[in-house]
């Protein structure tokens, strides 16, 4: 299964500190969505960069670019237009516990 990463660019600096109620609700849904991918096994890791620029990083498996793109575009925050996404092919070269 091919590996992919998508970056989720938050709408502004200090985003984690300044989320509105509507944004918090969408990010809760986003977190649940990722937990669902994790439960089914397609998610490898996810988390935000900390500090002033909060970029979400999602590493996951999908058969091909179309499938990978569909995973990214179904992310609740992208669907709701709250952030922008950037998809790239990825390779997990080293993984603690595996290599």
């Amino acid at each position, binding site marked *: *299964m091919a590996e992919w990463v998508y970056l989720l660019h938050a709408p502004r600096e200090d985003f984690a500190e300044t989320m509105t109620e509507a944004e918090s*609700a*969408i990010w*809760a*849904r*986003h*977190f*649940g*969505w*990722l*937990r*669902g*991918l*994790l*439960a*089914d*096994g*397609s*998610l490898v890791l996810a988390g935000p960069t900390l500090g002033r620029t909060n970029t979400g990083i999602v590493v996951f*498996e*999908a*058969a091909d670019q179309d*499938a990978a793109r*569909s*995973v990214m575009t*179904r992310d*609740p925050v992208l669907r709701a237009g709250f952030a922008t996404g950037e998809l790239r092919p990825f390779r997990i070269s080293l993984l603690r516990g595996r290599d």
Partner: protein
Amino acid sequence: MTAYRDGDRTVVAIPARFSAAQEREWVARMLERLARQERRRRPSDDQLMLRAAGLSERYLGGLARPTTVSWATNQGRRWGSCTPSDGSIRISTRVQGMPRWVIDYVLLHELAHLLHSGHGTPFWALLDSYPHTEKARGFLEGYAFSRELGHAGHELGADLPDDERDDEPGDDSRVVTSTDVG
């Protein structure tokens, strides 16, 4: 520290620095914790009914009063269904093994349908007070979508932490296996 099922084995990861006595104590403790987590994730029909009653009391002012709540294998793509005329609720066995906050959301969703049939604003307003509604809806979407893509994952719930889990400090650098699956 973590504990999970791997086929018919149970794997408990504990810090390498633990003594034999600590290992015995923590393996027993982690197995008990795992069993507790599994009971929460795979409640019996009776437990489902009790959970539903508790959720109705807490989030719906006790207004939703189901007559039966049971697991069902015939729900197709639905996570659950209800029949307001006889007060029965069925929850898909696909939900078994999901975190408690997801199971509770599915229960609450069906309970709310005993009060409102559609998916309009009044319906969602009923679920507003449950703090995991959005997260649980996201979970079910993500899980279903991943399945649709044919990822066909591992045994559900095997290594998926509940949010309620109290994590223990320490590095998981030694693995103890046990065939006791409780």
